[in-house]
């Protein structure tokens, strides 16, 4: 029994020393060969994507603004903004100056003695010099002004050598109902003094004189302390200056003012020469294209807008159409045929309006099929086109005329045989070489609720762009079948059209792609019921496709995957 016990203990001790060295190699990951032998057949969904048509357009051309139009479907917009000068620059109130001389004889003849003081009062009118120098049809007639700021500066110079006092009062310049009034006192030793007053928050009524506009009355009172002696001859020289106007608002008649006179060019990037787009072999027609001038006018003044130039460059014919080739009689061309602009009726608000150039007043619908790459315009806007002085209006400190000039191409029409080409750089040699695939099939399933169909081809090419293979064997295979539309361009049936495409690749084909350097993509699309003169379709925001990509693959892994 003792021997048995010894043997047992010996065995335990022995295993404690021997066994770890036997087993640890099995867990030594540095010994991992990386050789894997394995087979399996999988059919798996790789990816899916809901792609809206408008998203594709946005990616293809980032300059397009896609919006729902008035009829609910999508339109492509290319636009340019023009804007008038700020109102303070346009209607600038310059410095106003007035001066008056009062002699001893004036004071003695019309003044009043009270004790030893001789007082003289006179009421004068400061004529408000205008202002908007661009006025062509007479001065503006200002009824009133509300000032954010301004400065009144007046001076007195006396040659009497006596103590004196000057009082100025502006009964029509008020603040909180109180007229502006101020005075200067001179000692007998003083001959000159001046005062500067802020006009912040004052309003000026320029209608209190018989003329009823552009005049400010001022009452001037000069007092001379004569003492007991008769004053020696002398004069008071008085100056009044109002300057640094910053007005909050202004009422009256503002005359003719040129709000804007600008030209700009709108690029129609979709038609620009882009090697990815093949318009040459395509035919298309967009219905109801138009050019719109949308404006926002915060002037409270009647105004007008008109074009002075409109040109378009036609890429298809390499010629430029001028305005006479584009417009019809009702087109707002020149000062003689302007479009009127609505104006704000309440200070601080703005009126919005639109001037439309479409097939009723232009040949724009014939311009678009010629693939214009740009449209150039020159436009002008001015106030008071009728020069009617009886119409009294307002402007405020923020008055401005903003306008957006926009070319709208509604996605309503038909398209035939438009081809999109692209090239993707690929280098799959390192992947293909080790790809443990015996057979592979790519399943492309597209559910389409758009009235647009497409066929596609993908070419694998080498560095010299020599085609090695193509992905889709039948080039006429439609990867996208179009949904049918009715006479109004609407879908007849909202159920999406399902188009499955299966691409089989053998191991040999996969290996032959190892020298591929580029993938050429060619997608040709047409609208439903295509062919030139085909049925017009409308494309709505909710239109799109759902793409499902699946992979059916037989794996035959018999390789070293360690990367060593």
């Amino acid at each position: 029994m003792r021997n048995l016990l010894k043997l047992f203990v010996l065995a335990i001790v022995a295993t404690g020393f021997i066994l770890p060295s036997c087993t640890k190699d099995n867990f030594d990951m540095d010994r991992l060969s990386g050789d894997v032998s394995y087979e399996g057949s999988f059919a798996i969904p790789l990816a899916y994507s809901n792609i809206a048509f408008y998203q594709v357009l946005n990616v293809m051309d980032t300059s397009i603004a896609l919006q729902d139009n008035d009829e609910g479907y999508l339109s492509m917009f290319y636009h340019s903004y023009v804007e008038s000068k700020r109102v303070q620059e346009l209607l600038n109130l310059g410095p106003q100056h007035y001066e008056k001389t009062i002699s001893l004889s004036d004071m003695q003849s019309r003044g009043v003695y009270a004790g030893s003081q001789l007082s003289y009062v006179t009421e004068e009118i400061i004529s408000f010099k205008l202002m908007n120098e661009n006025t062509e049809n007479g001065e503006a007639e200002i009824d009133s002004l509300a000032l954010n700021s301004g400065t009144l500066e007046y001076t007195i110079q006396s040659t009497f050598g006596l103590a004196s006092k000057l009082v100025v009062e502006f009964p029509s310049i008020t603040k909180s109902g109180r007229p502006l009034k101020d005075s200067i006192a001179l000692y007998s030793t003083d001959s000159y003094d001046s005062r500067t007053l802020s006009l912040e928050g004052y309003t000026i009524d320029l209608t209190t004189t018989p003329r009823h506009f552009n005049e400010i009355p001022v009452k001037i009172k000069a007092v001379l302390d004569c003492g007991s002696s008769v004053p020696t001859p002398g004069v008071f020289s008085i100056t009044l200056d109002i300057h640094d106007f910053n007005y909050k608002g202004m009422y009256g008649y503002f005359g003719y003012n040129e709000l804007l006179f600008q030209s700009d060019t709108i690029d129609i990037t979709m038609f620009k020469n882009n090697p990815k787009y093949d318009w040459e072999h395509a035919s298309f027609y967009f219905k109801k294209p138009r050019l719109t001038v949308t404006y926002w006018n915060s002037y409270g003044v009647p105004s007008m807008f008109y074009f002075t130039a409109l040109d378009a460059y036609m890429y298809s014919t390499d010629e430029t159409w001028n305005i006479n080739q584009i417009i019809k009689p009702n087109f707002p061309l020149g000062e003689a045929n302007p479009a009127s602009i609505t104006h704000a009726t309440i200070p601080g608000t703005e009126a919005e309006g639109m001037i439309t150039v479409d097939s009723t007043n232009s040949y724009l619908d014939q311009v678009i099929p010629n693939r214009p790459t740009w449209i150039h315009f020159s436009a002008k806007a001015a106030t008071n086109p009728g020069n009617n002085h009886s119409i009294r209006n307002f402007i405020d400190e923020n008055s401005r005329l903003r306008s957006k000039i926009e070319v709208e191409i509604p996605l309503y029409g038909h398209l035939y045989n438009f081809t999109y080409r692209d090239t993707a750089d690929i280098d799959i040699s390192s992947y293909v070489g080790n790809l443990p695939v015996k057979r592979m099939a790519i399943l492309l399933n597209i559910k389409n609720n758009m009235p647009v169909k497409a066929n596609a081809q993908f070419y694998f090419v080498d560095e010299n762009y020599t085609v090695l293979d193509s992905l889709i064997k039948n080039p006429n295979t439609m990867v996208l079948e179009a949904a049918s539309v009715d006479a109004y361009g609407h879908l007849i049936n909202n159920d999406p059209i399902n188009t499955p495409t299966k691409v089989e690749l053998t191991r040999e084909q996969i290996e032959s792609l190892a020298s591929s350097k580029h993938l050429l993509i060619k997608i040709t699309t047409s609208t439903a019921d295509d062919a030139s003169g085909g049925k017009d379709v409308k494309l709505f925001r909710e239109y799109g496709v759902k793409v499902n990509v699946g992979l059916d693959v037989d794996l035959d892994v018999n390789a070293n995957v360690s990367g060593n």
Partner: protein
Amino acid sequence: MIMKKNVLIFVSVLLLLPVFLNAQQANTLYYMDRVFQSQTVNISEIPKNRIQVGGLIVPLFGQLPPAFYFNYGNNSFNYNHILHFGEGEKKDSLVLDLPLLMKKAKRNTCIRGEFRIDYFNLSIRTKKNAVITVNLSDRFMYGTTIPKSLFDFALNGNRDYMLEGKSHDISRLSFGATAFHELGIGFTSEIREKFSVGGRMKLLFGMLDMSTKIGSLELSTDPDMYFITASADMQIRKSTSLFDYDGEGFSFEDISTLTNDLAAFGNVGLAFDLGASYKITDKLAVSLSVTDLGFINWLQNSQVASAKGEYTFEGIELGFLPNDEGKLSYGIDTARYNAGHIMDTLVDLFDMDIRDKSYMTMLPSNIFVGATYQLLPKLGFGFLYRGEIYKKTYNQAITLSVNSNITHWLSLHGSWSLINNTALNFGAGLSARLGFITWFIVTDDVVGLIFPQKAKTINMRMGCTLTFGHEKKVSKTATRL
């Protein structure tokens, strides 16, 4: 390096992750009658000594060696069924052998494990052979069941099933990881001559739990679109502060928050061990034991995610997304598919209803049926049948043992077991008493400890107890009464 890392992760997931594994798989221990820890598998066992004290909190002796138990079991494959040395030029290299793994996978691969630390054990036997036992332990249990159908889906692929119009039934898939404190109070009594019964009530305090409850789960592939549809009736449950779902997505806390879980006492459970032993003749005895018959009700930080219905995976979603410049570009919403959001994506995919609610888990329960035959005064033989019930699966094992209390201070035990579908399990046990100190070590598979790469079963229990009032002469081995 990436390849090695990936393989290591793959093997770990299949094998090494369940280091803390399974319900009591202590077949050799069952007949170690001088080790009062055998009461953990048969409560009707009456210890030989009057008083025994053990556990980590016993100064010095409690740590020499520490009283612990671990078990790992896999009924399908071992490490070398996944990675093994190749042939010819590859004889010194490890080869990843997926076909062998597939070949070895059983209808249901059951991976189980447990790690147990005993902080305190006490056994007091009266003169009338009535025994009171107290134990305080922490237990970490893990179990996962992987249907072969899932291996088939992952390794062989789904194409054949798709063409045949069949689905992959993985309803038996399960996962569970549980940790809890256990306070047990047991009583064993010789109620009649040659017949003893025992019972232990165990108050359980759950620390953390992550588990599944799958009624049905099938994967089918649409032959037209290759969509993979899961027909599911399942729950995924958790009770831990480690992560949480707030209705928007998952938030993960630092691993240090696990200390909050370890100190949790709000998840209360109850379990029982029951046993009976009967000595038919002087040489022949039989016993029956049931362990871990109980449950834990999880209340703290508990959430239940439910999915019932059909859920279709169409692939990764691609779409137009605004780039840094605000322009649209086509691609994958990487934020949605990165590792941090993968759980959110799964929740979305299965349209899971996640609620803060309590739930109950059952412990993996064992039934032992044993018989011993005392051939010689110092030599006896034992037979043991063990069955384990855990989440729709029932695992069985048979053990034959030879047991000898060879001297008054030393006993030796050897066993052969059919466990986890392999017959190459040779166990050994030893207990030695030096004065008032009893030291023991036991395993059901010595080979598994030596060659873990070839083992489907790896377990070991050891400990040191203070023993008082031991028997003065050598007892017959394994006759129980």
